[in-house]
């Protein structure tokens, strides 16, 4: 590959998936996404190699790599580590410059991020030590009903009633769900209730940082249509239709920041 071309990568290792995005100048060149393993360094590398492979590039072709996500601290392949909050902001801004609010629902946490026109973070809030509103929570619920995680949203959307869930704590919610099923409540109505209660939680999170259009929904859970609808209702907003897999936003942001760092350090020819 020609040395005169400028490639930058962002690698985002989350608790459920590792993602990589390669950027060439102004456009997304390649992406990679793999489930996270126990070893976050390996997961990050696998995602990066997947992206490199699909683009026919070698690691040496990359001018700068930024690592992000929970695996960022131990990422030897990266030149720098930046938090996923800053990265999500940059990534969403890069794709949709009109976005001012980001809801990120990943595997183990949920974030509300407010950004300005340059994609700089203005304010953010994260849910506290609680799986509610996260991929993990929905995964557990999918397990209870013995359905695929990807189908949860569609099932919830077919509900005729909303059964209130009292608990948003995973452990309690699991046992509560089981007793609701035992009482004869319909699965779709329970699932609808679950989606609503999470959306409510998130609406609460936004009461701390405020909300401004446009709104972008990122992270693994963003692919869940039921969640998207429930959030739109709870927050009374319309969520922007993403141009790429919403799970990749953090890695994309990291790649954009990689480009900025490269520029700053004079590595960009």
């Amino acid at each position, binding site marked *: 590959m020609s040395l005169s071309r400028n490639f930058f990568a962002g690698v985002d290792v989350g608790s459920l998936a590792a993602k990589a995005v390669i950027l060439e100048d102004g456009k997304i060149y390649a992406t990679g996404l793999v489930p996270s393993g126990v070893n976050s360094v390996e997961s990050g590398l696998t995602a990066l190699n997947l992206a490199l492979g699909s683009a026919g590039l070698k690691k040496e072709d990359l001018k700068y790599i930024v690592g992000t996500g929970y695996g960022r601290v131990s990422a030897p392949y990266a030149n720098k580590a930046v938090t996923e909050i800053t990265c999500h902001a940059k990534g969403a801004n890069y794709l949709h410059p009109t976005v001012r609010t980001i809801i990120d629902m990943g595997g183990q946490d949920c974030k509300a991020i407010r950004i300005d026109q340059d994609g700089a973070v203005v304010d953010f809030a994260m849910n*506290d030590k609680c799986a509610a509103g996260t991929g993990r929570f929905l995964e557990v619920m999918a397990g209870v009903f013995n359905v695929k995680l990807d189908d949860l949203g569609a099932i919830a959307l077919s509900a005729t009633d909303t059964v*209130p869930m*009292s608990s948003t704590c995973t452990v309690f919610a699991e*046992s509560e769900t089981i007793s609701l099923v035992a009482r004869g409540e319909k699965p779709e109505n329970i699932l609808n209730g679950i989606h609503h*209660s999470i959306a*409510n939680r998130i609406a609460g999170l936004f*009461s701390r940082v405020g909300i401004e259009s446009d709104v972008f929904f990122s992270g693994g859970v963003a692919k869940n249509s039921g969640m998207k609808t429930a959030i739109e209702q709870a927050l009374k907003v319309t969520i922007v239709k993403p141009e790429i897999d919403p799970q990749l936003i953090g890695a994309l942001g990291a790649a954009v920041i990689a480009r900025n760092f490269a520029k700053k350090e004079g590595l960009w020819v």
Partner: protein
Amino acid sequence: MGKQLFRYSEANKEKFLESDNITFNDGSVVTPEEIWHYLTVEGPEKYPGTFEINLYQGNRASRDETLPTSLKTHYLGLTFSERMERAKDKGKSIAFIQGGQAVDPYTAADTIALRPFLVGQWYHGREHGNDINKSVLRRKQSKEKAFHDMSFEACQTGGYEHIQSGNLRVDVVAPYTVLRCSDVSYGVEAHRHGPNKEVKLFNVDYPLRYQASKPWAVEYFAQNLRRLVKTLDEVSGRKTTEDDLLKAIKLHNEGRRLGTELAELWWSADIPPTNSDDRLSLVSLANLDMHGDVQASLSVLKEARNIIAERVKNGVKGHAVTDNPKRIFILGSCVGINDSRSEDAGAIVVGKDDQWSHCSSLVEEEGDPFYNLAKATLEYPYEQSIEKRAEWTIEQIKKSRADGVIFIHNWGCNTQAAVARPILDVIKRETGIPTYIQERDLHGLQHEQEQNRVNAFIEML
């Protein structure tokens, strides 16, 4: 799942129509006829959720229909929201207070005093036609927002969500910041950042650490009460005198006396004359604040006292009470166990300290009414030291012949949770009665796990 609805049976109508009227503060009267109509026609239409049979929400499949006062408290609950709206239209002042306090000074100042539960009842009663699911969802939504505005670790948002963004016409937030509830005490301040700039804030500072024996502390609290009345007067534009307070104290003493009589009659019976739910709703009338109308509460309380005396005399057993139920005394904060399900498991609740301590404290009628009221309030047994509170509780346990004690507190109720264990310790030491601590999962409504444990405790007894 089809929703089953409860309906009052016509079979009891005739008997009910013979019962007393309810007389309200403004002198108006509702007849049993009108109450019956409301309970069978208007009520079910407006509030289908409260007629929905749902054990998990404490809605029974059947009720004590031959206990007229039970229907009346139901009526007062259902009409609460409309009555508050009407009172406001007529220019009445409304104050937010805390549970576990008497309301004599508010009555004196012609102000309706609403504890957190009632503020919620007012707000939720404004929307009609909801089934249980819908009203629970609505409640959860407004709570969630309040938690974010205040703290996630609050169990009690002090009516914040309703007063601040629910357009409830509450004029003044002015609770006694008694020890029982730490959250209301911190919550009062939170109102200062809410959008409702109209609502006045006032803090009736309850001096801490058992100060009833310190004259300067009683004096300080009396000054708080004076300032409270002045603040209420500023809102209403009236001029409350010492004499007004004395009258209010006498009126409330009557409520407290009647309530105590009723409770003691109930306790004296070998067979529980009502179920747990009815017992509590009648005994807690003693504070006269329960339905936002002092006179209405008093008139139902009077009738209830007589009916209970009658039932005890005739050995009538309360509806849905099992034979030889295990008698449970509840301690702790402002929550209780699920009465009907616990009854099904063979128990009955015979007392609850937080609904009782202030109701059983009479106020001296001779001398400075502010000072007397302050002194009586500082003497609330519930607010005393571990040993003293336990000592009083033991007395109540003995009078009520309880077989077991459950200390239940909400998640996040710091000051009650903190003394749960030592208080039960003393009770166990002095009486040997089995005890048990239960924490209520805050947002929990179904309480499956909690009920399992309560049932296990009952079985153990």
